[in-house]
C-alpha cells in the first residue's frame, strides 16, 4: 500500500498498522536525504504550510519547520501570543483568514483536546495535530516508535514502559496507541495520582514500582512532569517524585539487562532523569530528535501527495 488511509494526521487512533509501516518506510528514505551534503528535495515546491502554535514549543516547532523546508515547501509560522487571537478572534476565523492566502496545510498545536479534529471538520485544509492539550501528539508517538525500531530492530513483541505524568501527557497516549498497533506490550509507571483511572481499559497495565518496571521492559520512555497543566499538587514535592520515579545511573546499572532510555524532551535534568543517564550510551534522546525530522518529512510528504491539485 503506498498511500495513507487518512487525509489528516489528527491522532494515532485514526491510523492503521499499514499507515505506520508506510510512514516508517518513507522516513527511512528521508533519513538518508537529511544526511546528504544538500539536504533538500523539491517535492513540495508548490505547497504552502502554516504552523500555528497556541502553546510553547522548541523541538516540535523547529522540527516541523525544518522538515517542511527540507521538502522545499513555503512556510509561515504563527504563535498565538503575537497575534489577533489576543483581540478575541475565534479559531475558525484565524485559520480561515490564513487559508484565504492559499495555504494548503496547517500544523497546529493547541491547548484544548480535540482542537485539531474540530478544525479538520470546519476548514478546507489538511490538518496535522502537533499536540492538542493532554490528548494526542501523533508525530511524537510515531518518532518514538521509529526510534525503538531503529535501536531494537522491531517494535512487535517488545516491552515498553512509560514513566511519569501519564495523566497530563499527550505523548503517553499517542505512544500507547502506536506501540499497541505494532504489537508491543505497554506498561505505565508513576505516582498513583498521575495515572489515569481505568487506563487498563485501553490494554495497558500499571506498575507502581519503578525498579520492577525497568526490570521488565526493553525500553523506558521517561516523561516530564507537566507542571503547567497541574491545577493541584499531585505529589508532595519534586524531591519525593525524583526519589521514587527518577532514573539515575546506579539504578540503570543495577538492572539485569541494558534497556533503551527515551525522553520526548524537554528534560528536567535531575528530576525524572539524571545527566549521566541522559547522556549515556543507552539513551536515544538525540536520535529521537533526528528521527523526528525524518518522520515529520514522511508524514507531510504522504499527506501532501493526497492534496487535490
Amino acid at each position, binding site marked *: 500500500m*503506498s*498511500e495513507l488511509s487518512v487525509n489528516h494526521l489528527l491522532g494515532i487512533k485514526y491510523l492503521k498498522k499499514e499507515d505506520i509501516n508506510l510512514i516508517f*518506510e*518513507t522516513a*527511512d*528514505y528521508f533519513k*538518508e*536525504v537529511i544526511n*546528504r*551534503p*544538500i*539536504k*533538500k*528535495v*523539491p*517535492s513540495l515546491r*508548490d505547497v504552502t504550510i502554516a504552523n500555528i502554535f497556541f502553546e510553547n514549543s522548541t523541538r516540535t516547532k523547529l522540527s516541523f519547520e525544518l522538515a517542511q523546508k527540507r521538502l522545499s515547501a513555503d512556510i509561515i509560522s504563527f504563535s498565538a501570543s503575537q497575534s489577533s487571537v489576543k483581540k478575541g478572534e475565534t479559531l475558525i476565523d484565524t485559520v480561515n483568514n490564513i487559508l484565504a492566502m492559499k495555504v494548503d496545510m496547517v500544523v497546529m498545536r493547541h491547548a484544548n483536546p480535540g482542537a485539531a479534529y474540530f478544525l479538520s471538520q470546519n476548514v478546507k485544509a489538511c490538518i496535522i495535530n502537533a499536540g492538542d492539550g493532554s490528548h494526542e501528539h501523533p508525530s511524537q508517538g510515531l518518532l518514538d516508535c521509529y526510534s525503538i525500531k531503529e535501536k531494537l530492530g522491531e517494535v512487535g513483541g517488545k516491552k515498553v514502559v512509560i514513566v511519569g505524568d501519564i495523566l497530563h501527557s499527550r505523548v503517553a497516549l499517542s505512544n500507547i496507541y502506536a506501540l499497541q498497533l505494532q504489537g508491543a506490550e505497554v506498561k505505565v509507571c508513576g505516582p498513583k495520582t498521575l495515572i489515569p483511572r481505568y487506563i487498563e481499559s485501553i490494554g495497558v497495565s500499571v506498575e507502581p514500582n519503578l525498579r520492577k518496571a525497568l526490570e521488565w521492559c526493553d525500553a523506558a520512555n521517561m516523561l516530564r512532569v507537566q507542571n503547567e497543566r497541574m491545577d493541584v499538587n499531585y505529589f508532595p514535592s519534586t524531591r519525593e517524585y525524583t526519589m521514587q520515579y527518577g532514573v539515575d545511573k546506579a539504578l540503570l546499572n543495577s538492572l539485569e539487562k541494558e534497556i533503551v532510555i527515551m525522553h520526548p524532551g524537554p528534560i528536567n535534568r535531575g528530576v525524572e532523569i539524571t545527566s549521566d543517564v541522559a547522556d549515556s550510551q543507552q539513551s536515544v534522546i538525540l536520535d529521537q530528535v533526528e528521527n523526528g525530522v525524518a518522520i515529520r518529512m514522511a508524514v507531510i*510528504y504522504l499527506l*501532501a*501527495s493526497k*492534496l487535490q*491539485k
Partner: protein
Amino acid sequence: MSQKVLLTSKEVNIILHRLACQLIENHLDFSNTVLIGIQPRGTYLANRIKALLENDYHIKEVKLGFLDITFFRDDFRRGEKQLEAHETQIDFLIEDKKVVFIDDVLFTGRSINAALTAIQSFGRASEVELLVLIDRRFSRHLPIQPDYRGRQVDAINDEKVIVSWNEKEGEDAVYLI
C-alpha cells in the same frame, strides 16, 4: 495483449559486452569515474555492467551507487499513480568525478532530468553521461539523449517496453507489449 520479443537473452548479453567495451574506451581504468544505477530498474543493469567490467575486463574496483529519484520527479501530485520510493545508496562523493547514469529504458527523459537534479545533492560532477539498454526514439519530452545505447526502438506511446532480468524475472530479455 500481444508481446513481441525485441531482444533475446543472447542478444542482451552481447549488447552488455559491447556497452562495457564502449565504457572502457572512454573511461579507461575508471579511476575517475563512478557508475550510478537509477532506481528501481536501472540497478540490475548497473550491477551487470559492473560485474562485466570487473570480472571479464579486469577493471579494478568500479565504484557503483544507486540513486532514487522519487522526490525529484516532476509528476508529484499530478497523476493517479502513487509514487513509491527506493533506496539511495551512494557511499562516495562524486565531486570532480565523471558520472555515468545507468537506466534500462530511456523514454520521455523526465527520469534522467530528475536524476540530474538529484545527483547535485552529492557534489559537483565533472561530467555526466547516460547509458541505457533501450532508447525509445522519438518519445522524448526533453532534450536528453544517451551517450551509450544498447538498442534503439521505435514504439508508439501506449506500447510498453519491458526489460526482464535473470536476477528478478528469471531471464534476460526485452519485450514490447
